[in-house]
């Protein structure tokens, strides 16, 4: 598992906010994603009903996950493939490393896979002397830059064209590309040429999965670049890494989720490439891999299945929640400090790396609910974040300051007479502090507020005080 830096969240926020390139990139990306999704959804009558259906399909599958996993495995085997089971990241890495070694792999190509990030696959392969080549253009860019994805479907979202230009100019010299390119078509074309050789050289190709289909053992992947297809077609060994929650019963079920996925993710009706893999090359096939392996990863998923976070396993990794999250839009994906950013990441990260490490994530949220309203499978993300806060509170992991403030407030709230007096006292005191300006530029205990905002001053009497007078006046 990659090391988490989620405990640095607060510390890293100011730099992220000050980064103008990041702000420009995030604004542009969010506007684009939001607008495209909105258009695609408005052109699909009954999208709300489709969301509900998607939720039902995922819930049904999760409720019978043992049955569907078992059936899926048998179908893969019938198709000539192998299924491996990994309880955790460590086991997953070991399995994949062994498969690579058996294939005498020196070069591995990779299609985009968030599970591979989750299990820290690249580092493990590289430590064993195997060169890993990310082939999704976004993943390739951040691999060159030595960074991690800042978005689950657009990993290099945070990078500007100028930064990509610098990066390619620095890193592509060794392949004989010496000219500095500045325009996107030329940059894409250069990456195409560099990566084309990788597909042909690689012994092993590793991809993720969008859906695993129990009915026939298919692995369904959705891409726009075609890199996933080249990765799995050209290498001698094709390895699929997937979380066990990727299962769906039938192709019809997958189709419902597919209609939700592409519209929610990029506002597309359909991706350029939607592919089913059904195992290794058949005897008469002129191309395709000799071996086909699927590594099913648990990694906390069975734990979530059994607790109040089961609904998170419905997630189909579309990224709509982060595209619509104003906090993610402000700070970008990297400050979240682990694999998954944004609202879904703020739920998954603490469950994977612990609340001690990632305690800020569920709190750095206004609970505005926009994420849930666009989630294709209606995951109650704000509710899940609140449940994490509850865990935090109940295990004493919330801050002592906020605990004390909260205790004071709830003690007041439980004593109406005292509460009324305290509020009246507060109204008078704050009005005095404000003086004739009518607002406070500084206020004890609320430095966070007054650093960037004034605090409107109270009128000097609480509503309850005035209301008592008003009622008396009415009576007379």
């Amino acid at each position, binding site marked *: 598992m990659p090391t988490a830096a989620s405990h640095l969240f607060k510390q890293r926020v100011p730099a992220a906010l000050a980064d103008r390139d990041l702000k420009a990139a995030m604004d*542009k*990306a969010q506007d684009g994603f939001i607008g495209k999704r909105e258009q695609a959804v408005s052109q699909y009558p*009954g999208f709300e009903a489709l969301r509900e*259906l998607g939720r039902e399909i995922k819930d049904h599958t999760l409720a*019978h*996950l*043992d*049955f569907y*996993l078992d059936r899926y*495995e048998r179908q893969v085997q019938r198709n000539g493939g192998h299924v491996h*089971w*990994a*309880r955790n990241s460590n086991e997953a890495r070991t399995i994949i490393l062994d498969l690579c070694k058996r294939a005498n792999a020196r070069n591995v190509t990779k299609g985009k896979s968030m599970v591979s990030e989750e299990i820290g696959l690249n580092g493990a392969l590289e430590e064993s002397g195997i060169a890993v080549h990310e*082939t*999704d*253009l976004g993943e390739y860019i951040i691999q060159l830059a030595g960074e991690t994805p800042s978005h689950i479907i657009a990993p*290099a979202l945070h*990078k*500007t*064209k100028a930064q*990509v230009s610098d990066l390619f100019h620095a890193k592509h010299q060794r392949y004989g590309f010496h000219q500095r390119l500045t325009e996107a*078509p030329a940059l*894409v074309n250069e*990456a*195409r040429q560099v990566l084309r050789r990788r597909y042909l050289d690689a012994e092993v190709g590793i991809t993720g999965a969008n859906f695993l289909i129990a*009915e*026939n053992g*298919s692995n369904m992947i959705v891409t*726009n*670049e*075609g*890199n996933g*297809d*080249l990765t799995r077609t050209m290498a001698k060994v094709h390895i699929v890494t997937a979380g066990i929650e990727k299962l769906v*019963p*039938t*192709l*019809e*079920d997958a*189709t419902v989720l*597919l*209609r939700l996925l592409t519209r929610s993710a990029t506002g597309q*009706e*359909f991706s*350029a*490439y*939607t*592919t089913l*893999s*059904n195992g290794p090359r*058949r005897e008469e*096939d*002129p*191309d*395709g891999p000799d071996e086909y392996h699927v590594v099913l990863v*648990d990694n906390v998923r*069975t*734990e979530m*299945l*059994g607790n109040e976070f089961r609904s998170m396993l419905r997630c189909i990794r579309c990224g709509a929640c982060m595209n619509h999250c104003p906090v993610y839009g402000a700070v970008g994906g990297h400050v979240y400090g682990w694999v998954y950013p944004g609202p879904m990441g703020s739920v998954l990260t603490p469950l994977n790396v612990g609340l001690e490490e990632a305690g800020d994530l569920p709190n750095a949220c206004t609970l505005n609910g926009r994420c849930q309203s666009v989630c294709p499978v209606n995951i109650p993300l704000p509710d899940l974040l609140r449940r994490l806060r509850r865990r935090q509170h109940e295990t004493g992991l919330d801050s002592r300051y906020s605990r004390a403030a909260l205790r004071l407030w709830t003690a007041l709230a439980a004593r109406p007479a005292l509460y009324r007096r305290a509020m009246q006292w507060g109204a008078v005191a704050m009005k005095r502090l404000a003086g004739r300006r009518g607002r406070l530029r500084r206020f004890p205990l609320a430095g966070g507020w007054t650093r960037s905002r004034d605090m409107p001053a109270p009128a000097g009497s609480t509503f309850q005080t005035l209301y008592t007078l008003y009622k008396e006046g009415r009576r007379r």
Partner: protein
Amino acid sequence: MTSAREDILDRVRTALGRDRISSDTRTKLDRRLSDPPSYERPGLGEDRVHLFATRLTAVRGGFRKTDSGHVMESIADCLDRHGLERAIIAAPALEHLSWPADWNVSFGASRGDDRVSVTPCFAAVAETGSVVLLSGPDSPTSLNFLPEYHIVLVRAEQLLDHVEDVWEKLRSTGAPARTVNFITGPSKTADIEQTIQYGAHGPRSLDVVYISTLQECL
């Protein structure tokens, strides 16, 4: 020591608060798999061919309608539009076509340096503007991805309404092909500043030659 497989399945059952699935439930789930649910499909509301062409061209795919007597003219037309020579690698399934003698046509899998491929398809989908190709000796998958220009021949009877229609057709073919490719327009990426660029890794263009039935021509 229990295997990871048994362990994970046990954990799943514990999480779900039950033992192995009962035989009653199993029967129901088996039935759900062998007779998949038929969910409501999106309304298409117009002529199937027209919709297919609209969806395909909306994602920068090329669409040409022709009849079985003029397939080569249409292919030549595609090549001319992209300024390409008559050098083609075609799927072995198309060997029976009357290729002009002065064209340089070879058949088989792509070696990686071919400019143009021509392939048949298994189906096409009006809902999405996709062509669907199955891997096999007659239609190597590498032809769909390695060449820079991809031309796909679609016969009228292959055009279906919805994605689900493809699944039904697939099930009727027996053992599944190794790969089923839905292709919807040329390869593209938006990974640099969220602006779409074509020809990321796969073909820079996708042209569909739609071969009408005699009836449609009349």
